[in-house]
């Protein structure tokens, strides 16, 4: 129903895409994504969010890398729903690209990209904020933070009391 509404509003079809890439997202990949939009002269602004693996300190050990795994099929299905919600809310948005890493991503490397383009900046800005937050909340992606002493802890986007998830 939500899907149909989105399609009716935008006239766009949202097929299932695979957002996952193996390893870190190279900066050159982002440049290529940007350059591809030069032919779309109805675009006035691009907004991009990039997630970078941060070297947090946990119990005196620093995070050296995050190993990402995902329930890939469910994550891609959830992403299709989020994409349709975004196009329904910002129907003037020209395009939306999302990628997430799988595998071991070192501190300082990029693991996540949300890229929206629109005629006016507010639409792209709001869509990127929405999609970034919803991906973090709704996509079954798991992160093992590998510490400097070769131990690890499991990352969670929303600290919860044991047993409260999915809340």
């Amino acid at each position: 129903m939500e899907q149909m509404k989105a399609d009716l509003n935008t006239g766009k079809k949202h097929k299932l895409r695979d957002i996952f890439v193996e390893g870190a997202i190279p900066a050159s990949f982002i440049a290529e994504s940007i350059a591809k939009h030069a032919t779309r002269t109805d675009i006035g602004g691009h907004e991009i969010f990039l997630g970078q693996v941060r070297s947090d300190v946990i119990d005196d050990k620093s995070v050296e890398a995050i190993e990402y795994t995902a329930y890939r099929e469910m994550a891609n299905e959830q992403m299709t729903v989020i994409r349709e919600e975004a196009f329904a809310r910002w129907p003037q948005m020209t395009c939306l690209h999302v990628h997430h890493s799988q595998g071991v991503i070192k501190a300082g490397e990029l693991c996540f990209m949300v890229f929206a383009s629109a005629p006016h900046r507010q639409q792209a800005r709001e869509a990127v904020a929405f999609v970034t937050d919803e991906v973090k909340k709704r996509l079954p992606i798991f992160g093992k933070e590998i510490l400097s002493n070769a131990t690890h802890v499991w990352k969670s986007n929303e600290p919860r009391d044991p047993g409260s998830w999915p809340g």
Partner: protein
Amino acid sequence: MKVLLFGIIAEKANAGELELEAESVSSLKHALEQQIKGLRELSYALAVDRVIVHNDQQLTGSEEIALLPPFAGG
């Protein structure tokens, strides 16, 4: 039925999936918590055919089940 395991749950079970039979979500959870040491103490969600279920429901055995620890994407 096939039960997919992820993240800390896969680590605790030392397996990426399990085969189990159960006629409902609640009996499946009970069986899983017997089999995977420490699962009861974890935060997790259960997905049936890639949708998180919040209530008990009957299972036919052909569903794809997954145990999901807290999400950490981004």
